[in-house]
């Protein structure tokens, strides 16, 4: 009898804890949405944040360029190697350009590009805002009659939304180009066949799909990373935890959204 009660109580505790986590998660999603939309609603409110937006675009976009080029190059190269190995078994090496192009434009460009931006820029957004909270710089802005949501959050959300598709476009070009070098120059695939298959297979629909993904990923990265920083516990440990959470939550969100968007765009 007492065993049964113990089991029931353990089950109740488990579901209770699960419920509390779920409620906390829903509460956080609501809070993040309100905070992000609150910041975005200040887009058309004076003073304009043009200068700060350009600064952020430069910091996030230009700052992530090198890592995007390196990642794009090696992704294209490894795709060409793996693709060639598989296609050669069926005597279809000429399809290499189509395979590399489709994989990068539809899937790997937006997802890996977003991951790189999360690692390079997203984490620094969270840490920077978190440190501003710890050192009362956001309170100082408030007391100087400057809305920190408009000054700090808004330019970063807009900058990531614009920077990610631009970076993904560069990733795509570099990836396809490096795939060409490996496939054509190293493995001996016919250059005409590589380009012809690439052009005939990849449509504007695929390219738009990649861009839509990149815009959505960029927006979500901006929302999540600014939220995590702004709501971080104002301690050094709190900022460190928020930075880790921002990277994890952004990455998982990108993967979930990737599946949802792919299912719409297939």
């Amino acid at each position, binding site marked *: 009898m007492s065993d049964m009660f113990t089991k029931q109580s353990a089950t109740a505790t488990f579901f209770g804890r699960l419920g509390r986590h779920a409620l906390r998660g829903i509460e956080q999603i609501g809070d993040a949405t309100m905070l992000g939309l609150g910041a975005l609603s200040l887009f058309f409110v004076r003073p304009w944040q043009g200068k700060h937006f350009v600064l952020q675009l430069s910091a996030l976009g230009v700052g992530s360029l090198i890592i995007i080029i390196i990642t794009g190059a090696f992704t294209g190269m490894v795709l060409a190697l793996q693709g060639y190995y598989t296609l050669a078994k069926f005597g279809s090496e000429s399809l290499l350009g189509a395979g590399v192009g489709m994989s990068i434009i539809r899937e790997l460009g937006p997802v890996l590009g977003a991951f790189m931006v999360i690692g390079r820029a997203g984490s620094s957004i969270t840490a920077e805002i978190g440190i501003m909270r710890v050192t*009362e*710089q956001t*309170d*100082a802005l408030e*007391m*100087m*009659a*400057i*809305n920190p949501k408009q000054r700090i959050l808004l330019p970063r959300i807009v900058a990531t939304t614009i920077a990610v598709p631009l970076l993904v476009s560069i990733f795509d070009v570099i990836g396809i180009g490096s795939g060409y070098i490996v496939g054509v120059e190293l493995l001996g695939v016919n250059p005409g066949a590589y380009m012809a298959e690439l052009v005939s297979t990849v449509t504007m629909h695929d390219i738009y799909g990649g861009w839509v993904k990149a815009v959505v990923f960029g927006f979500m990265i901006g929302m999540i990373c600014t939220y995590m920083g702004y709501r971080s516990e104002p301690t050094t440990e709190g900022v460190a935890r928020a930075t880790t959470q921002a990277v994890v939550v952004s990455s998982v969100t990108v993967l979930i959204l990737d599946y949802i968007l792919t299912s719409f765009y297939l």
Partner: protein
Amino acid sequence: MIRGEKLSKRYGDVTALSPTDIEISTGKITAIMGGSGSGKTTLLRLLAGLEAPTTGHVWYGDEDLCGMPVKRLYELRESMGMLFQYSALLNSLNVYDNVAFPLHEHTELDESVIGTMVSMKLEQVGLRGFEDLMPSELSGGMAKRVAFARAMAMDPRVVFFDEPTSGLDPISAGVISNLISETSRKNRMTSIVVTHDVDAGLGIADHVILLWQGCIIAEGAPESIRNSDDERVQQFLNGRPDGPIPFSRSTTSYIDDLTHKPGTVRFAS
């Protein structure tokens, strides 16, 4: 006149400030004093509108700060300044840009005029010539002085000082206290100074409010506070370790905890 009416603040189960009525006279220096954790910074943040009270209202004249539209709140804040405990300088900007920041944001003055104003403010705090230094290159005292210059940049009518002298050497602390006193009197500024520095607080204030455990235990002119009969006031002013204000925050006896917990220390009988 700034007035707090039945102001209280709770963080979860912890009461930082019990319902409190407070009046800050215009053009005077009011010192809010008390030990660590007595609720003085909470009270300051409520008066500055940086936090919403759990109960009560903050009145600036006949306007209630709580629930005030953000646009109006920011208009009001253009005539306010605040010196934060850890200076809160914007660490991406150098000394010049930190002091010029409110001027760039809220005025359309020519850069040469702003430059002159920044020079004046920095001269006032003895830091002219240090314009190009970054906050990370400043000592604690220098950072406080730059923060002071920034707080004064817009010639505010109300200034909040959160622990302006804490962590400073006696000379720097004296400089900051003098700056608060002189500037407040010269500009007829309403200054609210939170401090646990007894000499600084009683030395510069026109009115002193003493807090203990989130409640006001004494208020009045510095002389009346000095001559107060309240033992808690005297213990705080004289820094006595023994008295009605306990040093330990533990709610249970340590000896009882040790002797009554099974498996812990047993005293030989």
